[in-house]
């Protein structure tokens, strides 16, 4: 895994340095009051005047000690985790602040996807090509195809402006710091409702169709016919025998979605004014804030590799056939 990580980081590093411009062109880059000499000074401070491969070497040296560095942007905040200076002042890390929010939204929406998509998929499979199946397929595809930002705005208008049901954007209401914890949590939950719903909607289609097709495959297997033939109740056949086997491939899907958990959506985060990972990454790319870009990419690729590993292990745990394969 380590050589793979180094390879990924080298390629990402080279690619982001291929893009023209650096932090000095984006930050005060077009302000006549800012002189070229001071920009050159900044370039030297950040080692941006050195060859790319030397810069990569310096970065690798730091990352080997798990030091993600500080942002190039003016505030110089630590990229990953908080630091404490000699006077005991704590500066929180950028990823440290953005990650929990994105993680929370993505875990909630993944949960929502599972809770909704599983039954939908099963019902679809059981009523194959009949009305419920058609209706469900249509629904999930519309959900998949609908532009998220558009639906988000419509819902924000309907639930926030026309009716006073949900807050429009942000994470907390004004004065949230004075609420007791229950009111605080309820307030946060109301703020999260729309973002979670919107991000779950586009994920429904994939999972529910996966479950549907998996179920269909399994329902046509001989052992299901056997189960039915020996007179088992239909529920036992469907949920005890068919579903359990149909769910196996989902392990792969969830394994692969682990890195997705830390990646937020720029659009959703901008519209809902949520300070998450997507916005952080997008802004960093526009600003050419290399330490932040590399920090997020490194953590993302490490999690991808970890997700793959976990999926493989989970497979072995869930499926005796795979386990036997590993033993031999």
């Amino acid at each position, binding site marked *: 895994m380590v050589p793979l990580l180094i390879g990924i980081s080298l390629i990402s590093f080279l690619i982001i340095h291929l*893009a*023209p*411009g*650096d932090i000095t*062109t*984006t*930050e*005060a880059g*077009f302000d*006549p*009051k*800012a*002189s*070229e*000499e*001071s*920009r*050159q*000074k*900044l370039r030297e401070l950040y080692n941006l005047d050195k060859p790319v491969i030397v810069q990569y070497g310096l970065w690798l040296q730091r990352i080997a000690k798990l030091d993600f560095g500080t942002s190039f942007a*003016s*505030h*110089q*905040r630590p990229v990953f985790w908080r630091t404490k200076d000699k006077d005991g002042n704590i*500066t929180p890390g950028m990823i440290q*602040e953005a990650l929990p*929010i994105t993680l929370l939204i993505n875990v909630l929406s993944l949960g929502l996807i599972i809770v909704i998509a599983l039954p939908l998929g099963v019902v679809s499979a059981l009523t194959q090509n009949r009305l419920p199946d058609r209706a469900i397929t249509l629904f999930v595809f519309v959900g998949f195809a609908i532009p998220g*930002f558009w639906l988000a*705005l*419509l819902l*924000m*208008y309907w639930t*926030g*402006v*026309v009716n*006073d049901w949900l807050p*429009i*954007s*942000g*994470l907390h*209401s*004004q*004065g949230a*710091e*004075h*609420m007791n914890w229950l009111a605080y949590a309820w307030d946060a939950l109301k703020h999260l409702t729309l973002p979670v719903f919107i991000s779950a909607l586009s994920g429904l289609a994939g999972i529910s169709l996966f479950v549907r097709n998996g179920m269909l495959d399994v329902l046509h297997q001989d052992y299901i016919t056997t189960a039915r033939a020996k007179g088992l109740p239909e529920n036992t056949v469907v949920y005890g025998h068919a579903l359990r086997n149909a769910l196996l491939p989902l392990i792969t899907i969830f394994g692969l979605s682990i890195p997705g958990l830390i*990646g*937020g959506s*720029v*659009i959703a985060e*901008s*519209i*809902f*004014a*949520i*300070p998450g990972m*997507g*916005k952080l*990454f997008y802004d960093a790319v*526009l600003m050419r804030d290399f330490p932040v870009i590399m920090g997020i990419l490194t953590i993302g690729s490490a999690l991808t590799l970890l997700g793959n590993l976990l999926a493989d292990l989970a497979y072995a745990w869930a499926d005796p056939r795979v386990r036997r394969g590993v033993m031999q």
Partner: protein
Amino acid sequence: MVYMRDYFFSVLNSNRVVALLLVTSLAACGRSPVDQVVNYDIEYPPEDGGTMIDATRGEPGGLITMIAGDAAASAVSQNIFNSLLRYDKNLEFEGELAESWQISPDQRVITFKLKPDLKWADGKPLTSADVLFTWQLLTDDKTRTPYGSDYKLVIKAETPDARTFRVTYAEPYAPAVNSWAGMDVLPKHLLEGQDINNTPFARNPVGSHYYKLEKWRPGEQISLVRNTLSTQGPARIDRLVSRFIPDEASQFLELMANNIDTMALSPVQYARIFPARPELQQKFALYKELGNSYTYLGFNLKRKPFNDIRVRKAINYAINKQELIDGVLLGMGEPVASPYKPGTRWTNPNLSPYSYDPARARELLREAGFKDTNGDGILERNGKPLTFEILTNQNKQREMSAVLVQRRLKEVGIDVKIRVLEWASFIGRFIKTGDFDMVLLGWQLAIDPDQYAIWHSSQQAPGQFNFIGYKNQRVDRLLERGRMELNPDKRMKIYHEFAEILLEDSPIVYLFAGYGLQAMHKRIKGIDNPAPPKGIGHNSQDWYIPRPLRRTEISQ
């Protein structure tokens, strides 16, 4: 992959305002609003208190402007820190921390006398030592600021006593006065011995202006609370809250739902949505102020045929500026003929923009030797067709302008292609290398008239701002003289002449200057309308929110 998809959607995003229009026209029924009972239009006596909430698109990096340098940072810190001088509502200098300032007869020494009994928000006295300390920080080589150059021209800075600050320049430097209106004075007693580049003070500042920081919720909002020790007297409104809402459409929804009091509007919102919705007009007042920038079409003067003044003038005559203002800004802007704010003293009132005159344009091009020899509608000279590329960055207004320009130039026989680029690539790949025909960009309508960095022929190296390669010895001399002259009236004459030559030379085509458009909830009273040159914010300390109109706040 997630990011790729998002990038793709971000392209779709530019249509979001249109989507919002659709949305808002869909549902005409409003919620049953309690606040409609309140009449916002009657007079209320001024009183203290209340909270004003606004929205900004970006979050400040920190609140020390010399380091942060972003617009979001200065929007917040202008309420926290003072400068020695400031601009009054007509954009003339007046003292802020300084009670008076004197320029020596040889124009090389400026002496500032501070007001008596100035205090920091933490109660410590604010003296000339703080001013000197701030200057030292700005000019220190270890400070990572792009703004040091103006201040490095000071050869001697001294504090004869606690209320006097004196700077000496090697030779007279007119923009110096402006620079002292732009330096936020920082407290020495809190910053001494700290590394200014990453001091926690940037996120927890102590200033001397109307407000002080109450709480900064990262990624969400900054709230300021009234500073009772303010050097400028008390402000009326108790709390200012700035929420970070990156998306314009979401800001507008929050405004409609009465969750924010003010936001900057786009021309579509100002000129189309508001007039169509009486319930919005009932709650919000609209303000229009002079914009801070102008949009222009710049030629690469080092390339043929733009070194030929006839071609530049022809293009200037071929473009219909009023059409751009009507089409792109929905009428919310005005044409300019000099790089200064219309209506201020630096603008030469005798200048008017090139008229729209396609016949004249064709004639000038013919004089320059261009003829349509092969009958394809595009002019040629020596067998080479007149065809260029306009470069611009991802900015809806600029893209739309480029399309209108393209069409008008086609009518006089010039074939134009448009290329839209992301900002950093645009600057890094094209501007710095000088690899472009025409650019469609904007410059600030700066308050100080010195534009040496933009127009002087010595400022053409990669990374400098005369990237169009403008060179005119008369302009060079005027710009040099303008920098040496501190008398405003004499300065004015110099820059009027400069603007005249610039217009005649036509190195760029001034397209338009858009207005700053603002919606403000009617609960905020005491705002000047129409806005003076400085904009409506010039007396924000006197704005007030009458008690009956306040938003119900969560009980504490």
